[in-house]
């Protein structure tokens, strides 16, 4: 994947790019380059050579064609809320797609929406909600993250247990390929067995195979009755108690979400928020349930409460109203950052293991923390096996922090898991790709080579650097 990055870009190229999008939507000003130099959490700051805000697919096609002819790297970007550096560009063109924010079609009969990649998740749901419909991924960054970024990353969120991940909702895509050609793949239908599934080749490809310029999404009815509970598992064996309860509950019903927060994170949330948002217990579990009838909701509550108490849950508190429910989720969403405020850098993990191994991987993380004398916070989507761990560190602790991260990833692979469940590979996880995928990584490379022979599409992401 040898990429020739013209740095700085020749003025003649900049002028041609400006002709495509207009002077107002292209910049090489340092302030603009800095503004796009990083993502959420990651301690990496890299500047592109130029930032462009295209308005439509033909403009993107023209930009990509020009870039391909001149071997210039292109990195697409939505809201920049991913955590592994997938939308950071080291030189080349950074394409900010947020200007392409139109909902092109909403078909409430077929329950399908076709959108541009810059549509913000919550804006989309505000519109679909008027027809009682919902794109149910609910990423914690939903107020700002874009549909394109979600598809590029195969994002998921707090309700994946019941509703799945972004890939489960993508029916069709329009993509600008590396040579500037435009393809449409997939149809606005719920099923198709017609040939290779190219749609899902692009989902999660992090912009390395093409620029997604239009997305057709399946929508579902939004449940009318929702409830959220905090369940406290106070004993020193709280992790086993909580997971045993979760295993039993999952065999009889599928809550929308089941989240787990460790004691260290609970304390950090209460400290930062300056109010007791969460109880402080060995393990706190959040249950989120959705139903179409009030009676159904009550049945779910009874069942969950009964099972949880059987497994030594000493308190289960259901939100009294929407306001309290919002406060509960505010606490969970804050969990990602509050526990790491005391250090200058953070390593954020996104592992997933078979659900039966959740206690094993959490215990392993706790052991690593003790062994390396690190504070590692653990929050996660416990019921689907997706655990996030946060290792805050100062610069003099970076080696042991990264060693700890490596050890946790190796254990994840040993347990049959994956290095990233929903955040993507980006820059940070590249080093583990061979370990996870083995020989099939070569096939991924081959696919990349066919679609992007010059390696201009988001170079340096997903794949390890090729040996020279």
């Amino acid at each position, binding site marked *: 994947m040898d990429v020739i990055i013209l740095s700085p870009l020749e003025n003649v190229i900049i002028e041609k790019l400006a002709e495509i999008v207009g002077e107002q939507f292209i910049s090489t000003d340092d*302030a603009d380059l*800095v*503004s*796009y130099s990083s993502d*959420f959490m990651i301690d990496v700051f890299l500047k592109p050579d130029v930032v462009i805000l295209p308005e439509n697919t033909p403009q993107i096609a023209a930009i990509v064609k020009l870039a391909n002819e001149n071997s210039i790297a292109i990195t697409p970007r939505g809201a*920049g809320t991913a955590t592994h550096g997938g939308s950071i560009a080291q030189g080349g063109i950074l394409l900010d797609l*947020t200007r392409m924010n139109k909902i092109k079609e909403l078909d409430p009969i077929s329950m399908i929406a076709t959108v541009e990649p810059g549509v913000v998740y919550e804006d989309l749901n505000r519109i679909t909600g008027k027809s009682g419909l919902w794109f149910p991924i609910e990423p914690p960054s939903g107020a700002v993250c874009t549909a394109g970024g979600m598809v590029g990353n195969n994002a998921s969120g707090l309700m994946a247990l019941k509703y799945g991940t972004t890939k489960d909702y993508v029916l069709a895509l329009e993509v600008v390929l590396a040579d500037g050609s435009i393809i449409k793949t997939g149809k606005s239908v719920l099923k198709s067995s017609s040939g290779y599934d190219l749609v899902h080749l692009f989902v999660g490809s992090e912009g390395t195979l093409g620029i997604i310029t239009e997305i057709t999404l399946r929508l579902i009815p939004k449940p009318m009755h929702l409830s959220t509970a905090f369940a406290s598992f106070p004993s020193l064996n709280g992790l086993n108690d909580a997971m045993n309860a979760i295993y039993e509950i999952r065999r009889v019903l599928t809550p929308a979400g089941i989240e787990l927060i460790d004691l260290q994170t609970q304390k950090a949330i209460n400290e930062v928020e300056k109010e007791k948002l969460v109880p402080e217990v060995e393990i706190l579990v959040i249950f989120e349930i959705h139903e179409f009838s009030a009676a159904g909701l009550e049945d779910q509550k009874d069942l969950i409460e009964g099972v949880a108490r059987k497994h030594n849950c000493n308190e289960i508190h259901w939100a009294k109203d929407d306001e309290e429910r919002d406060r509960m989720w505010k606490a969970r969403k804050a969990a990602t950052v509050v526990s*790491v405020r005391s250090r200058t850098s953070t390593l954020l993990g996104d592992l997933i293991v078979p659900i039966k191994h959740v206690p094993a991987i959490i215990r392993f993380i706790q052991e690593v923390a003790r062994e390396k004398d690190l504070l590692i916070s653990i929050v996660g989507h416990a019921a689907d096996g997706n655990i996030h761990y946060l290792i805050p560190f100062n610069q003099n602790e970076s080696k042991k922090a990264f060693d700890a991260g490596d050890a946790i990833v190796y254990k994840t692979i040993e347990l049959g898991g994956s290095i990233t469940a929903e955040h993507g590979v980006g820059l940070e996880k590249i080093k583990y790709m061979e370990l996870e995928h083995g020989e099939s990584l070569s096939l991924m490379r081959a696919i990349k080579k066919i679609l992007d022979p010059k390696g201009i599409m988001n170079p340096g992401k997903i794949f390890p650097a090729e040996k020279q």
Partner: protein
Amino acid sequence: MSEVSFKNLIKVKESLDTCFKCSLCKGNCPVSEQIFWATFSPRGKMLILRSLLRGQGTLTDRVRDSLYTCTLCGNCDNTCIAGISVTDVLAAGRRDLYEARKAPESVNSLISTIKESGNVFDLTKEDMDILGLNPRMKFSENADLLFFKGCYATYHSIPNESTMRSFNLLKTLNVDFTILEAEECCGSPAYLLGDMDTTKRFCEYNVSKIEETGASRVVTACPGCYRVLKQVYPQLVGTLNFEVIHITELLAEYIDEDRLVFKKTGNDKLDVLYHDPCELGRHCGVYDAPRKILESIPEIHLEEFDKNRDEAKCCGGGGGLTISNPNLANQIAQLRLQEAEEKNIPTVVTACPACQLNFSASKDKYNMKVKILDINQLVGSVKGL
């Protein structure tokens, strides 16, 4: 880089270092709703300032535009899950730019005007006498309560006579009050735009004049004046010898004490949306008093914007945006007013002359039907009073 000391930014370095760049602050940012460039988002601004402080960035005109294209509404602070005050960081950045003479020309020009005339509208004392006060109105000499008029409420270009309405309202309620004969700007515009020296000068002047009157309470109808008097003055000159309240808090007190009662008139109910001014609401926590007043008026049916109280969207008129980018300020106001039209609610009530001014400018510019009322204007016009 050596041209700017960044001495104010250094004071908020911890906030810059703590920011995890999640960008959730963009979610309710009025500027980001209008401008797609990340450069103008709260995270973009934080990244720019961090890079400058670390000596890794270049101070271009775009930096200046980014910092001054902000209403300082505080929605970013309210959204931040790490508990950072983004607006404190941006204010520090503005101070460093202003002190290094790198602020936009429109900002320098306004501050010069305020310094010279003592008000934001460049009015002479004679102008002010003609525009601002009824010369026949007599004020008590030994009143315990002082009404701080404020430039916007008294002299702004919309002839709604906000200050006169406040005076008449207080007189109707038999409130014994006085004013400063030679009141100067409260300092809020200078504070928001980054000139702390001027803010302090006005602060010292107004505090000494207020203390000379012996008043123990200062009431104002302008949330900008209110915030600066209540929160900034004590930081600059220490504890004040007087309490600062907003006129809505005074009226709410009177309602609680049954000294202000609205009688039923039999008129049709008027549906209104209350817009929380950022300076009064998010920055000072006054949400209930204006609602108490509106809910006490039998002819008013109070509705809420989707985003209200601490999540209320900005009108666009704050942070000096009407000076640095008036078109953008109007566009932000238009978006807020559109919600009223979509909800088919004919009237938006606010408790801030700056909000009223910007809303009214936007309403005229975009030919909108919604009526904009100051809460004093509404209360003063209620026949049952």
